[in-house]
């Protein structure tokens, strides 16, 4: 069904298709419409989930963990400080190998209080064992949510998946949405290690130093195996629904001399900058990075890189840029822009490319 929807409502609509048994969530701007819409669906009977309005985000993830280990499908959503407040349990969910799906509406961290888009919140969770994907349109928010359940619940993965959408810039805007019915795209969940009273086992008990590292290695092995699962799922999605997704979204990259790399809506607006630059004779291309964990193989070639980070790791650098350098050895022009919802237009992005100085870091609005 073709309609117009906000990013938040698209996530809620996809969750309704996935039909989780339990949704436990706590409100935080700008995620609130996701949980409100789910509450509406439950009240009007179009979604049969048990909705638990928990008293904090830590409890939201804890409740999802409690539900998930019984073998049922679960979902939650949060943002910024909520994600930080549940950080202990976010770690726990991955360590417990639970296929929980969570939508995170990217928002800056206080103090001062700022409710607008920034990616630092989710990127601070990049070490936890969660898979993470960043979307840039309302349709992609819907599609990525459907795929997230299938990826998380694959036996080769059994790891939780976070879908990231820019606070206000995507969560609250209305765009076209094809609300494709999931059909049997998401197979029923079979959790091999679910609690069974007729086959009792202890979960997460004391583990000695002689054994603990093996559990952690197992997580990484599944994270590596998830690369294949993500690829298969995105291909199956393209076959079933006709919409193609991959590790990145490339725009006019084939003959490009310089690439703009970014995540989220900035990565989409960069395409407009590319068109402007091309008209000036600059062979620019845009490579919007979607998956941050597992970190993808990027098709960078010999091009110059302008990496826009809507985040920062203090004392180190922009997280996408430094990740690229760590993985490939390639230097880039690292632009720090969009923090706390700072306005960044396609004109600004074109300017970053024109003014690029490879190897340098440029704080938009601060540096000259």
């Amino acid at each position: 069904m073709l309609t117009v929807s906000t990013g938040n409502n698209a996530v809620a609509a996809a969750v309704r298709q996935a039909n989780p048994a339990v949704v436990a969530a706590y409100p935080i701007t700008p995620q609130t419409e996701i949980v409100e819409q789910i509450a509406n669906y439950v009240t009007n009977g179009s979604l049969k989930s048990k909705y638990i309005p928990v008293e904090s985000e830590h409890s939201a993830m804890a409740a999802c963990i409690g539900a998930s280990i019984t073998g049922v499908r679960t979902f939650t959503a949060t943002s910024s400080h909520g994600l930080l407040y549940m950080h202990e349990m976010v770690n726990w969910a991955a360590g417990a190998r639970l296929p929980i799906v969570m939508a995170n509406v990217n928002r800056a961290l206080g103090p001062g209080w700022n409710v607008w888009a920034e990616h630092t919140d989710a990127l601070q969770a990049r070490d936890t064992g969660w898979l993470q994907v960043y979307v840039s349109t309302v349709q992609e928010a819907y599609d990525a949510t459907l795929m997230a359940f299938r990826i998380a619940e694959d036996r080769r993965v059994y790891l939780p998946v976070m879908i990231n959408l820019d606070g206000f810039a995507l969560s609250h805007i209305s765009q076209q949405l094809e609300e494709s019915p999931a059909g049997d795209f998401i197979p029923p969940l079979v959790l091999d290690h679910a609690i069974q009273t007729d086959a009792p086992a202890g979960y997460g008990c004391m583990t000695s130093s002689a054994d603990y590292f093996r559990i952690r290695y197992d997580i990484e092995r599944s994270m590596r195996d998830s690369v294949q699962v993500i690829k298969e799922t995105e291909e199956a999605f393209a076959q079933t629904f006709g919409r193609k997704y991959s590790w990145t979204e490339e725009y006019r990259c084939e003959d490009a001399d310089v690439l703009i790399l970014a995540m989220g809506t900035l990565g989409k607006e960069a395409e407009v900058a590319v068109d402007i630059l091309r008209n000036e004779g600059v062979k620019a291309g845009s490579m919007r990075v979607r998956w941050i964990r597992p970190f993808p193989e990027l098709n960078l070639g010999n091009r110059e890189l302008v990496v826009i980070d809507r985040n920062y790791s203090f004392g180190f650098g922009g997280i996408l840029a430094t990740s690229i350098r760590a993985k490939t050895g390639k230097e880039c022009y690292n632009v720090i822009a969009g923090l706390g919802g700072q306005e960044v237009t396609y004109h600004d992005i074109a300017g970053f490319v024109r003014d690029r100085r490879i190897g340098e870091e440029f704080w938009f609005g601060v540096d000259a």
Partner: protein
Amino acid sequence: MYEIRLHSRGGQGGVTAAKLIALASFRDGKYATAAPFYGAERRGAPIISFIRIDDKPIKVYSQIHNPDLIVVLDPSILDLVNVFEGLKPDGKVLINAPDIPKKAEGYQVQHVDLTGIALKTNLVVAGSPILNTPVIGALAKMGLFSRESAAAAIKEMFSDERNLKAALMAYEELV
């Protein structure tokens, strides 16, 4: 790409008006995005919504600085905010008012008394006249989208018939 900036006060339905514009454009076969710009979100505070309409997918998320059309749902905002800032030289203005306010003189202004229409059709909720569906009628008359698409969008979002009635009145009464 056609860019619209809509000025209203919190609680007047400006955000929904933006969605309706997007939906009507969409039903006309166009691409459209509607984005509310939230400052301090509270009833009565001036707020802005950005709407973009185009024949191809819209990839711009940043604010509209040079709108083609400015819509003012509450004329008292003219005293608080320079709603005309950045308006394109050939840009148009639509104001909810029975007459053209002094501050709007010199611009290409069209106006319609949306508040009056809302009161006449009893389109009032919790004491506030509903302006977001009537304004769609006025915008259809201005050629933003077809009358049919406007009606379809209103019917999709609202079951109460007074909404369509008020929109049709605004269509007729636009000056």
